[in-house]
C-alpha cells in the first residue's frame, strides 16, 4: 500500500506558511504604497467582503460593518452598548394597547443624493421591506431575513401622519420593536436612489444619510467611503475618508496591521492578540461580550429529568478554571443566559464549584458511582466557545472526577445544529450571539415552548413560557425587565442549563487610533475615529 507521508504533512505546512508569512511581510508593504493615505484616511482591515451594501436584504456581518457607516436607523445602539439612543427619530411613543408606535423624525436631514429625509421616505422603506409585491422589493439571491424574523408577523402598515411624524401600526403588540429597529438591517435607503438604480442595483450604489458617503467598491479588495459634510451629528465624522480593505487570512490581516497598511483589524488569531499586546505600535480593544456559551441538558432523557443530577453536573464543572485556561483572557464566567451588557437579567447567585456536594447529590439520586452517557461538544470555534473540543474535554474530565463518565462525541456543525432539535443528544454544548439588546432575542429563542422530541426545547415549565410571552407584548420596559429576570431566575433554579462563559471579541489597532469603540453587535461607528 502506498501511503502519503502523512506524518510530515503538518510540519511541512507550517514551514511553508511561515515562509509565506515572512515573504508576505517583506513583499506586501512595497507593493501597496498607494494605501499610505495620511492622517485623513482611516483604513479598516475586514475579514471578508460584503455581499451587498443594501443591508435590508442581507444578514451578513461583513455587510453591516460597512452599511453602519453609510446609513442611519430610527434608533440605534449607543456607542459600545446595547441600549438605544435616537438616530433618525428624535422621540417616540407607543399607544397603551401596544399597537401603534409613533416616531417624531429628525428635521433637516438629507440623503447623500439630496433627497430629504421625512416620513414619506421612511414609509417608502417600510413598504419596500413589508410588501412582496412592491416594485423595489425583490432582490435576486437575497431575502429580508431580519424583517422576516423580527417584524413580519406583527407589522401591519407604516403611515406618514405629517412630514415629520411616522406611525407604525401593528397587528399584535411587539414590545421588542424598538430594539429590533436598532438592527442595521432596518436602515433607511434614499427613495430616489432606489428608484434610480432599482432594487437590484441599489446594493452596488448605496445612498443613505450616514456619516460617510459611498465612493467605490472593488470586490474582494476594498470599499472606499468619504465624509458626509452635512451629517446631522455635528462635528462628525472626524476622519475624511474610510477605506475598508478585505484581507481574508487572519495572519495576513495582522501583518498588514503591523506594517501600518491598515489602522485596525477585526477577528485576529488569539496568538496575534498576545503579540499585539507586547507590540509598542499596537493596542487591543474589545467588543463587549454579547454572547453566551452553555451546556444544555436533554430533559427528555430519564437521567437529566432528575434535578439532583443536573445540579450535580453543574457543581462539578470548574467553570472558573475553564474560562481562565481556555479563553485566552477574553472570557468571563457566565452565571445566566444573558451577558452583563443586557437588561432584564436575574443576577442570580453564581453556581459554585463544589465536587463534594455534587457527589452527595449523585448518591441521593441513587448514582453513588456515577453513570456514563454521551456528551456532545461543538465541532467549531465560536466566540463563546473558542475551542469546542478543548472545553468539552475539560468539562468531561471535571465530570470524571465525581464518577460521571462523559463519552465525548461530535459531528459536522450543520448536522449538530439539526440534531440538537431531536433527542439524540443527552447533554450538549450550545451558545448564542445576540442580534440586538432586547431580552426577547435571547430568552424568547431559548424557552419558547416544550417539545418532547427536541433536546433543545426539553424544558417544560409553562410558568417560564408565560412570563416570556407576556413580556413580549408588555409595553413598559421596567415591567418587561422584571418578567425576564423572574423567568431567568426560575430557569437557573431548575439547573436547566449550565452557563459557562461570555467572551469579549478583540479588535487590534495601531496606537494612533482614537475613538474606535468596540460594539457588541460588531458594527463599530467609525464616525468617531481619529488618527492622532
Amino acid at each position, binding site marked *: 500500500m502506498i501511503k502519503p507521508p*502523512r506524518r*510530515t504533512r503538518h*510540519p511541512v505546512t507550517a514551514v511553508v506558511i511561515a515562509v509565506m508569512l515572512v515573504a508576505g511581510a517583506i513583499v506586501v508593504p512595497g507593493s501597496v504604497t498607494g494605501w499610505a493615505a495620511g492622517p485623513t484616511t482611516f483604513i479598516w482591515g475586514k475579514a471578508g467582503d460584503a455581499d451587498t451594501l443594501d443591508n435590508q436584504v442581507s444578514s451578513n456581518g461583513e455587510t453591516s460593518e460597512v452599511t453602519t457607516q453609510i446609513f442611519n436607523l430610527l434608533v440605534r445602539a449607543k456607542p459600545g452598548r446595547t441600549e438605544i439612543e435616537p438616530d433618525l427619530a428624535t422621540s417616540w411613543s407607543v399607544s397603551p394597547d401596544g399597537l401603534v408606535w409613533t416616531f417624531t423624525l429628525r428635521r433637516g436631514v438629507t440623503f447623500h443624493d439630496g433627497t430629504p429625509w421625512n416620513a414619506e421616505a421612511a414609509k417608502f422603506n417600510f413598504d419596500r421591506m413589508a410588501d412582496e409585491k412592491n416594485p423595489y422589493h425583490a432582490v435576486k439571491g437575497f431575502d429580508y431575513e431580519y424583517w422576516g424574523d423580527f417584524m413580519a408577523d406583527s407589522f401591519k402598515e407604516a403611515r406618514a401622519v405629517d412630514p415629520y411624524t411616522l406611525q407604525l401600526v401593528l397587528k399584535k403588540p411587539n414590545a421588542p420593536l424598538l430594539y429590533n429597529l436598532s438592527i442595521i438591517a432596518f436602515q433607511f435607503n434614499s427613495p430616489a436612489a432606489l428608484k434610480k438604480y432599482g432594487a437590484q442595483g441599489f446594493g452596488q450604489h448605496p445612498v443613505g444619510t450616514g456619516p460617510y458617503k459611498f465612493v467605490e467598491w472593488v470586490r474582494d479588495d476594498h470599499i472606499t467611503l468619504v465624509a458626509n459634510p452635512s451629517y446631522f451629528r455635528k462635528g462628525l465624522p472626524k476622519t475624511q475618508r474610510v477605506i475598508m480593505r478585505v484581507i481574508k487570512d487572519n495572519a495576513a490581516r495582522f501583518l498588514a496591521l503591523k506594517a501600518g497598511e491598515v489602522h485596525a483589524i477585526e477577528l485576529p488569531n488569539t496568538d496575534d492578540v498576545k503579540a499585539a499586546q507586547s507590540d509598542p505600535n499596537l493596542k487591543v480593544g474589545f467588543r463587549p461580550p454579547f454572547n453566551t456559551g452553555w451546556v444544555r441538558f436533554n430533559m427528555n432523557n430519564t437521567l437529566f429529568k432528575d434535578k439532583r443530577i443536573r445540579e450535580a453536573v453543574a457543581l462539578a464543572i470548574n467553570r472558573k478554571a475553564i474560562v481562565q*485556561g481556555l479563553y485566552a483572557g477574553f472570557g468571563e464566567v457566565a452565571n445566566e443566559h444573558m451577558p452583563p451588557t443586557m437588561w432584564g437579567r436575574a443576577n442570580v447567585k453564581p453556581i459554585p464549584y463544589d465536587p463534594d456536594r455534587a457527589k452527595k447529590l449523585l448518591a441521593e439520586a441513587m448514582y453513588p458511582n456515577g453513570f456514563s452517557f454521551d456528551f456532545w461538544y461543538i465541532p467549531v470555534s465560536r466566540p463563546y466557545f473558542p475551542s469546542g473540543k478543548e472545553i468539552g474535554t*475539560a468539562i468531561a*474530565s471535571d465530570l470524571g472526577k465525581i464518577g460521571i463518565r462523559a463519552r465525548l462525541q461530535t459531528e459536522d456543525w450543520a448536522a449538530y445544529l439539526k440534531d440538537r432539535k431531536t433527542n439524540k443528544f443527552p447533554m450538549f454544548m450550545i451558545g448564542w450571539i445576540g442580534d440586538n439588546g432586547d431580552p426577547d432575542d435571547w430568552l424568547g429563542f431559548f424557552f419558547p415552548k416544550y417539545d418532547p422530541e427536541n433536546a433543545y426545547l426539553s424544558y417544560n415549565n409553562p410558568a417560564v413560557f408565560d412570563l416570556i410571552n407576556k413580556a413580549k407584548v408588555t409595553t413598559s420596559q421596567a415591567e418587561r425587565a422584571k418578567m425576564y429576570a423572574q423567568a431567568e431566575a426560575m430557569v437557573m433554579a431548575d439547573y436547566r442549563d449550565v452557563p459557562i462563559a461570555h467572551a469579549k471579541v478583540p479588535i487590534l489597532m495601531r496606537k494612533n487610533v482614537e475613538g474606535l469603540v468596540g460594539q457588541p453587535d460588531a458594527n463599530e461607528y467609525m464616525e468617531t475615529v481619529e488618527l492622532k
Partner: protein
Amino acid sequence: MLSSTPESVTPSAVARPRARAAGRSTWRLAARRFWRNANARVGFALIVFFALVAVAAPRIAPEGYDQENLLGRLKPPSAAHWFGTDELGRDVFSRVIYGARISMTVGLVAVAGALGSGAVLGIAAGYTGGRLDGFVMRIMDVMLAFPSVILAIGIVALRGPGLNNTILAVSIVNIPVYARVARASTLAIKEHEYVVAARAVGARPWRVLLRAILPNAASPLVVQATLGVAGAILDAAALGFLGLGAQPPTPEWGAMLSDSYKYLLTAFWAALAPGAAIALMVLSFNLAGDGLHDALDPRLSSRA
C-alpha cells in the same frame, strides 16, 4: 516456491514432515539472515521497545493521560514535563507513552484481521480457481481501486467515529492486499508435486490448504503483514487526525497531532512528540518488514 520440495516423502505423510523439518530450517536460516541485517536489528529493537512501553505504560507514565491542568497549558519541556504540556495542560510525555498502547493495538489488531480474512479469501480463491476466484478477486480489485484512506473514512462515517471502528475500517481496507499476496502464492504452490501428491492420496481440500499450502504461502504474508502494521498505524493516525478515530481524551497519536498542530508556532513540542512517535513506530515496522523481506527471499537479498 521458497522451499525446495522434499523428494523422499512417503505419500501417507505428505505435508507434515515438510512443514516441520524443512520449514524449521528455512525459518532458522531466515532468522539468521534477518539478524545479520543492521537495519532490521534496529527495527526489531524499536518494536520491542515500543511493545515494552505499551505494556508498561501505566508504570512508566508520570501522569495520567487525561490529567488536566488548565492553568499550565502549552508549557515547554521541563524536568516535570519532559515533552512539555498540551493544550489542556496534560503531560505530553505521559500521553505519548499511553499512545504507544493504542497505536500498537490498532496496528496489530487491524493487520491481524486483514491478514486473517485476506489470507483465507486469497488462498480459497487461488486454490479453487474458476468463478469463485473471479468473483472474490474482482471485489478485491474494486476495493483496491479506492484510495485506502477514503475508503476507511467512508466506513468510519457509516459506523460512527471511535477506536473500534477505526480498527475495523483499517482492517477492511487492507484485506485486498493480503488476499492478492495469498492468492499469488497459492497459484504457484498448488502446482507443486507435494500438493498434487497430497491431493492424489485423497487429502481433503481444507487439509491440503492448511498443511501444504498455508505454510509455504506464509513468508510473503508475514513480510506483507509486518510492513502492513506500519501502514495500518499511519491509516489509524490519519483517521485520528481527521477526528474520525479515537475520541478525546484518548491519547491517540494522530488525534494528539490534530489537536496541537494549530499551536505549532507557539508550542511545537505538543505536536512534535506524537508526530515523532508515529514516525518512529512506522519506521521500526518498515525496517523490520524490509529485513524480513530480504531474509525470507534470499534471491532479493543478494541484490547489489
